[in-house]
């Protein structure tokens, strides 16, 4: 035990000496949580559109000013021809074009079926769908009022649960939290051990009377403490600056975060055992975890829309489970009764990684 404490102290000192890494380690979560909490949002706002008004009538001008009054859209370009419209798309400046045909006013006023065209940039389908929906709602609203009695029939009373202002932060902060903890923990341990191997100092440690698990433990403990500090600073930021309350139990959140952090540290250890250069370890840890975590853990794309094989791949990513847990505890305020399955999965992953780490480490020793 005394041995371990001395060793942990030595490792800690080692970590603290590297000021630049420390700066990045603590600066990174702070900057990113703020950045993504404030800046990211998938909502449609100020979308630049073009208008090709071939009619230039009272009706078309009214319609355009109605659209201009809306916060969703910015009428950026008054186009003169369809060729000009195509060029506007190619420059990537506008996302949608409203085409008002020449006989629009005539058709509307004489009771014929009038047509409007909404051309969207199909290279960004998600955006295209959303803005098409918003725009057709605006247009239909405008013309619907003239023919039918307004405010009659069934009116929806909409209650947005957990996130009344539809902000991005409740969705992104738990995701960024999972991502940052995952990558920092995995990277830190993966490198710390491979580095000793690469430098040859690992041999020295292994022939010393120290038990191998003590060596690994001593490497992991300082990083565990650092991760906890990072976790606390992310939580403080989201409560104070981003106004995200922690509705559920703080104790539970910490307990599960500890399990998640240990799982990631173990993953880093496994990577470091199977690789033999820092470069390989880092590339595996980074290129291998970053995009899959962002894309498959559910905070960018809804998991339920993915195909089954893809969902299965997502299921082996620890961050996916942690993200759901954080979302539940922080935003919804639910307790273990809802998330016990997720917690079991995380514990299972932790144990599997532990067994692999112990086994592999023994093989290396012989």
């Amino acid at each position, binding site marked *: 035990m005394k041995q371990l404490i001395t060793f942990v102290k030595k490792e800690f000192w080692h970590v603290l000496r590297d000021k630049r890494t420390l700066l990045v380690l603590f600066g990174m979560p702070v900057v990113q949580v703020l950045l993504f909490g404030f800046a990211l949002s998938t909502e449609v706002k100020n979308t630049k559109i073009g208008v090709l008004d071939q009619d230039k009538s009272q009706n078309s001008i009214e319609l355009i000013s109605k659209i201009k009054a809306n916060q969703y859209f910015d009428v950026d370009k008054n186009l003169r021809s369809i060729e000009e419209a195509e060029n506007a798309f190619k420059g990537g400046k506008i996302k949608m074009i409203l085409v008002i045909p020449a006989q629009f006013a005539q058709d509307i006023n004489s009771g014929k079926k009038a047509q409007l065209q909404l051309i969207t940039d199909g290279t960004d389908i998600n955006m295209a769908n959303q803005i098409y929906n918003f725009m057709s709602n605006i247009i239909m609203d405008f013309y619907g009022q003239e023919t039918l009695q307004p405010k009659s029939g069934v009116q929806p009373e*909409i209650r947005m649960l957990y996130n009344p202002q539809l902000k991005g932060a409740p969705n992104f902060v738990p995701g960024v939290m999972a991502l940052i903890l995952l990558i920092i923990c995995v990277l830190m341990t993966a490198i710390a051990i491979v580095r000793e191997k690469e430098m040859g100092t690992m041999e020295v440690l292994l022939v010393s009377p120290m038990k191998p698990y003590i060596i690994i433990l001593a490497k992991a403990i300082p990083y565990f403490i650092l991760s906890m500090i990072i976790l606390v600073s992310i939580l403080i930021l989201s409560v104070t600056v981003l106004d995200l309350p922690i509705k559920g139990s703080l104790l539970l959140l910490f307990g599960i975060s500890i399990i998640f952090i240990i799982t990631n540290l173990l993953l880093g250890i496994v990577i470091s055992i199977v690789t033999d250069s820092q470069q390989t370890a880092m590339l595996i840890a980074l290129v291998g975890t970053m995009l899959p975590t962002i894309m498959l853990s559910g905070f960018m794309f809804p998991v339920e829309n993915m195909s089954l094989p893809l969902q299965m791949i997502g299921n082996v990513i620890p961050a996916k489970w942690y993200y759901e847990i954080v979302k539940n505890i922080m935003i919804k305020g639910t307790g273990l009764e809802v998330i016990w399955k997720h917690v079991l999965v995380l514990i299972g992953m932790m144990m599997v990684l532990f067994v692999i780490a112990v086994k592999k480490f023994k093989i290396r020793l012989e």
Partner: protein
Amino acid sequence: MFRTLFILIKKEFLQIFRNKSILAIIFVMPVIQLVILPLAANYEIKDIKIAVVDHDKSTQSRELIRKITASGYFKIMNYGENYNDAYQEVEKDKIDLILEIPNNFEKDLVRENNEKVLIAINAINGTKAGLSASYLGQILQNYNQQIQLEMNPELETVKKNSGLEIVPKFWFNETYNYRLSLVPGILAFLVTLIGGYLTALNIVEEKEIGTIEQINVSPIKKRDFILGKLIPFWILSMVAFTIGLLVTIFVYKIQMQGSYLLLYAFISVYLIAILGMGLLASVYSDTQQQSMFMVFFFMMIFILMSGLFTPTESMTDWAKYIAYLNPVTYGVDGVRLIMLKDSGFMDLLPHFVFIIGLAIVVISWSVLRYHKTS
């Protein structure tokens, strides 16, 4: 002068090819990710799980529920007895949306032509919630029209006459292919990731091992040393890009609309800027760990603020400036524009100007900062 450079490049290549695992990572990992990840990108929101709490159980309420099911967007999971039970289901993530129809729904509708229904939506994901509300709003609007026509048949003529039709068109993607939106973007990002990391790590490695001292005391010029580091990784990144492009074309069947010449010209310049940034990171760090954390820090910001996943338009103003200063924004957008829209050189002029400017700044910065004696 070219001889030294040539020898340095050769040495670098020999070193790279000796490490098989790095090679596998450069060439295999991007391909696997490019093949698998875009399949996840399905923003289409359908099968929204809905719980109906129908207190009225009348003909009209059933008609409304029928309309909702018929739309194809919603999947009714259960019919609850009260709101609280349904809310419990939302807490457990089993339900996305609750529709509560009040007791006297049909009566009020017929008597006063006015009634409210409660719609409660799980809004942790704002986009999904917004779209669900908008779909449901459209269904209600249709339903209201139908009711009004039933009650006042004379409106029928008005409605027929003033029909307004909105014709949607999706340019550049007539087959409505979801993957088209993401594959070129991910391709651009993967190349950025690989090029950036390789350069950043490689030079620091020499520092850490100490071999850089040997080079520093040799008569090799600073310029030759840096070029000797950049050129091999530039070639490797171009190869990685080409492999990715083949995947895009043959696996995803995304047809190249624009000119290959322009695409390669663009990527060549873009990669110079990216490798330059990796170089800069390595100049500022002494260990691989440092440089990796630095690169990681910027890559996270670059990818999440590039418009690849969330639209740049909807960012707050100060965040937009970060997106405009982000090379990945230009990389992703440029590849998309050329591949999917056949945009020409003039359309991409702003992209070229920014990237060339960035390349000049970062490379001269790192050359100035790089001292042969430490």
